[in-house]
């Protein structure tokens, strides 16, 4: 009996997580695949047809939205790295005993709803609002200049909203860098730049990698920023999926589009991991 229990122990330990994954990930995923291969409408019902046309039609109608989403995702991720890396570096090496306070400041926006924060940008950046209106009154900007409903506004909104997801993993990676390694590099006649490029940067890459996954994936699928800050030329694939699902009750097409997006992102992430030559970076980042 005792031996049986011993053999069961690992399975029992994995059971909660396994059930969680099965119920909240595997089941919905399989239902989504099945739904994406159906045809019909709400009134007459949906039939399982096992035809792929939802995928081909989705890609041909909305292919440009996929490209745009990935492009915006990429730009916002790059912006996030550019802002987050120096911030994390400063907190990790110069934060002193106030480190946790600075990290708290980074997380502070999370205490206000994501939607609310995005909507308030709409007020701040209104064509004749407090910023642009004032600058226009001073004659510093032409009357028809606007920020809202431009791709700049969408990418800025995305970067703003997902920045903390980039700061935290990079900070964790940098925090683990032993300052004595930098001293050792300098003892071996490395300049400051060289010590950074050859010691600190490689050691922090797993953090950057984790940050990229945590921002690029949700940013590419986001629809809130494009809906609030963008115009018709800035629709992302998330908006299309949301409209197809909620507004047109076209569940099969919405599922097919979601699945396509997921596949593209997964392939992208694996390619990225390969290119970086760090197959075990995820593991390293989790350590």
């Amino acid at each position, binding site marked *: 009996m005792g031996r049986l229990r011993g053999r069961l122990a690992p399975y029992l330990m994995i059971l909660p997580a396994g059930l969680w994954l099965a119920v909240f990930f595997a089941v919905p995923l399989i*239902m989504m695949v099945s739904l994406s291969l159906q045809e019909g*409408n709400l009134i007459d*019902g*949906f039939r399982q047809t096992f035809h792929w046309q939802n995928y081909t039609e989705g890609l041909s109608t909305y292919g440009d939205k996929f490209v745009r989403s990935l492009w915006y995702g990429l730009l916002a991720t790059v912006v996030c790295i550019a802002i987050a890396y120096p911030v994390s570096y400063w907190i990790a090496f110069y934060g002193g005993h106030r480190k946790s306070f600075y990290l708290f400041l980074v997380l502070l926006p999370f205490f206000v709803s994501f939607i609310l924060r995005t909507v308030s940008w709409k007020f701040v950046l*209104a064509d*004749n609002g407090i910023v642009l209106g004032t600058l226009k009154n001073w004659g510093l900007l032409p009357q028809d200049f606007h920020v809202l409903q431009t791709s700049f506004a969408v990418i800025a909104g995305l970067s703003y909203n997902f920045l903390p997801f980039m700061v935290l993993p990079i900070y964790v990676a940098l925090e683990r860098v032993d300052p004595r390694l930098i001293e050792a590099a300098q003892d071996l006649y490395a300049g400051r730049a060289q010590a950074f490029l050859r010691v600190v940067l490689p050691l922090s890459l797993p953090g950057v990698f984790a940050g990229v996954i945590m921002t690029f994936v949700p940013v590419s699928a986001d629809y809130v920023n494009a809906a609030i800050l963008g*115009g018709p030329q*800035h629709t992302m694939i998330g908006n299309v999926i949301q409209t197809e699902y909620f507004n*047109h*009750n076209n569940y099969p097409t919405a599922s097919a589009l979601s699945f396509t997006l997921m596949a593209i992102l997964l392939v992208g992430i694996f390619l990225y991991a390969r290119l970086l030559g760090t197959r075990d970076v995820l593991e390293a980042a989790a350590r």
Partner: protein
Amino acid sequence: MSRRPNPGDPAFLRGLTRPRLRGPVTGRRDVLRLLGATGAGLALAACGVEGQGGKQNVTQSDVQKYWEGKTKNGVLNWANWPGYMEEDRATLKAFTKATGIKVNYQEVIQENAEWFGKIEAPLRAGQSIDFDLMVMTNGLQLEKLRQLGYLAPLDHSKLPNFAENAGESFKNPSYDPGNTFTVPFMAGITGIAYNTKYVKEEITSIASLWDPKYKGKIGMMADSQELGNFGMFAIGVDPEKSTPDDWRKAAAKLREQKDLVRKYYNQDYADAIAKGDVWITMAWSGDVYSLGLEDVRFVVPEEGGTLWTDNMCIPKTAANPVDAIMLMDWLYDPRANAGLTEYINYITPVPAVQEIVKQDAAKAKGEKKADLERLASSPLVFPTERDLAKLRRYRVLTTAEESEYQKIFTPIAQGA
């Protein structure tokens, strides 16, 4: 399969997970077998869904069966659109005073399609949506609610005020024959609003929405019916009599405009025109009237505008339907309706209100008097029969037509 399994239905989840609980898991192979069983269960579950349509025809006995044993509970949850009730909720307070029913009023509906998307799944599963009364426009989604049997059939013996006071054009409408499921809340006109601070000409034609002069300052609506209607007006077609061929031509016309349009709006166009983010936009009559801005003017373009009706209806799963139908009827008392009309400035389905507004104006003083006089004589709030003749209605679409219609018009608001 008779019923679509709902992923959120506890019984369905139990059914899926039961094999797991039958015996202890002893080896990797069993785990795989369980996974296989789950897969098979899903394959069975996913073999399609039968249609639920055709429930719009109800008989007197259906009505009786629904209302049998239902009683007044003293509370009512009402889902409505923003701007459809006085800020101080005076009408609701008066209702509570008259009937003792407490109203929990929420402005949760921004767009018909989006709202329908939210309530569709719980209604399909026969679950409560936590609202007893909601307001929907006479469009595609209301038609779906009717056909799918998601609405409570109204017991007209409980609606004496409606029978007595509703205007003739609001009774027995084509979108809900016999007022089986709905009674109108308010009606309004879709036309053009423009800000005279930036637009230095008088706007009379829908063509101004295609004027390159206003590039980046033009607003259109995202709703595919509203948008489609304006596309059809622009090519000189009456939406009510349009054919799929007209739809394609209208869509092509709307695509020409794509680069000029700042955004395809839901409710937020009113905010945008007030702030000057757009200068000229598709708009709803009452919104513009309520903005009360001197610079923002509303016109019904000479090509035509649309007349729509927002309707009160009761979801079938409502917990307090008796309270809801009492409110419906109470709003058809002209005195009760007058205060609301004076605030929201849409077309009231109770014509007797105009007399009351005139009387109120005679009693009022100063600014309030001018406001009420303006209202009583406003063609936007009390349109004449001649005005009404200029307006067109939404086309009622069959299920097959709808999917074609959506395919043609929805990508436009998505920028495609």
